[in-house]
């Protein structure tokens, strides 16, 4: 883990309020794993005082670069959207634990809702490098808010889509078609990232799906490194005892059966 400055190479709006930022930060890129995140200082430390966590969306070890994909939600991400190539970012990273990938996996299912695609795409690329077959189930408000369809297909990924308004793919939630997809395909493991409600839905159906499920969670963070205990999520251990774990340092990826939604 480092506190370091990265240099922005490019930062551009892709569509809707989604931005893609490419950052030169060799120390972090050299060791980053899909599922980890960086913690970015946004501004001069008066407004949006706290750092903002953003998942690692792409890792280019040879060029020492990271890609980020982010949605403008409030003042911190708005500040980030305004940054230009050449400017530098103060960041902590790589933080958290990546997605655990068992060497034996041959077929996996990724589920991404909204901006949840940011880390899932990173994972998808990693899995394809390892020649794992990937099915992606992706949800969005409507087809205008869908991201990376072409890139995913280019990676040889089978893509299923659900939109809230039915403007593309299934009309409804990803969780509506998830059980069917699992039953129709051989799946060794499921990874998911997206809105709280989607993950809770997966949590509920997980026992019935009967396969390893990992979810990447979000919580408001202060330190990002496990020091403040501010970002906790309810966790039940195998004995059923409930306690709290840090999303930042124990997660953000958790086995779904641990999480108390």
């Amino acid at each position, binding site marked *: 883990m480092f506190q370091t400055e990265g240099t922005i190479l490019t930062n551009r709006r892709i569509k809707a309020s989604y931005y893609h930022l490419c950052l030169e930060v060799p120390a972090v890129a050299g060791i980053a794993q899909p599922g980890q995140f960086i913690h970015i200082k946004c501004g001069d430390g008066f407004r949006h005082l706290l750092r903002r966590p953003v998942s690692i969306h792409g890792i280019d070890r040879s060029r020492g670069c990271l890609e980020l994909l982010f949605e403008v939600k409030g003042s911190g991400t708005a500040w980030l959207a305004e940054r230009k190539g050449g400017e530098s970012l103060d960041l902590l990273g790589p933080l958290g634990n990546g997605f655990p990938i068992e060497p034996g996996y041959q077929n996996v299912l990724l589920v991404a809702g909204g901006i949840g695609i940011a880390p899932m795409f990173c994972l998808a690329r990693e899995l394809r490098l390892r020649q794992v077959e990937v099915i992606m189930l992706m949800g969005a408000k409507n087809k205008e808010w869908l991201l990376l369809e072409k890139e995913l297909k280019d990676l040889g990924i089978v893509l299923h889509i659900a939109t809230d308004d039915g403007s593309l793919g299934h009309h409804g939630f990803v969780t509506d078609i998830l059980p069917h997809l699992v039953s129709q395909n051989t799946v060794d493991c499921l990874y998911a990232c997206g809105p709280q409600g989607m993950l809770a839905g997966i949590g509920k159906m997980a026992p019935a799906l009967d396969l390893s499920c990992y979810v990447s969670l979000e919580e408001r963070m202060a330190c990002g*490194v496990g020091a*403040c205990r501010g970002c*906790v999520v309810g966790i039940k251990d195998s004995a059923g005892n409930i306690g709290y774990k840090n999303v930042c340092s124990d997660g953000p990826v958790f086995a779904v059966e641990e999480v108390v939604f």
Partner: protein
Amino acid sequence: MTLDMSVNIAGLHLKNPIMPASGTFGFGEEYADFIDLNRLGAIVVKSVTLAPRAGNPPPRLAETAAGMLNSIAWQNPGIEVFIRDKLPFLRRFDVPVIVNVAGSSIEEYVEVVERLNDIEGVAAFELNISCPNVHEGGVAFGTSVKLASQVTAAAAQAAKLPLIIKLSPNVTAVEEFALAVEAAGAQAVSLINCPTGMAIDIQSRRPVLGNIVGGLSGPAIKPIALYQVWRVAQAVKIPVIGMGGIASATDAIEFLLAGASAVAVGMNNFIDPRNMLTIIDDLERYLKEHRIDAVSELIGALRK
């Protein structure tokens, strides 16, 4: 000219007056990747209780103007796990470790103190009697002069190491508490803990924090903290550790001038893990520029 950056708090020799505030630096190990812990004046760990504590339900954080609210309370693994899993790492460093002790009863405070008395690597106790996030115990001790002196007296009797009492800012006359705990045997006081605050999400019309209320920290509270430190430092003879919104050497110097013998950096560690080291460097620079030989000369040196 050699610069003397050291200060003395209740018999503890600190190589410089800068330390983290309890709860904002975990158990030290969380920040060891980012800074050389050996450079700090002391390390103050997160509140430790007798048994493990889960803390308050999430969400526990809310950002506010130049500050943040937290409702973490005393989430910690309990004293035994602290001794077994956390302390060994801290022993590797040449920095006094101040253990922040919390409890719901006088007995609990005393038991934790007694358990730690002879443990190698513990340099002093800071009694947290001022957490705004715990309903049983915490707040009552910090807002009743009588309870504050009782818990101090009991802990002072039990403690074989220097005893610091951490005061609450949520009182009418903080110096009355300082005087009471001084009389009861405290060897130093630290302040301020977080003023109590609240935030509401106007879309859901619910409190932002799972615990409804939380403690405010950060630059926003600095003027309040500085005032209370100044007020207490004038009242008591024991040393004062000042904290509340410190983010720069300028802030730290203000607290020293107001009468603090050392200062703690709290939420600003989250924003800039290197901040304490920057403060130490800038403090040295200030002393040199002002031809001051020893940082201790700043303590209480406010002119009228």
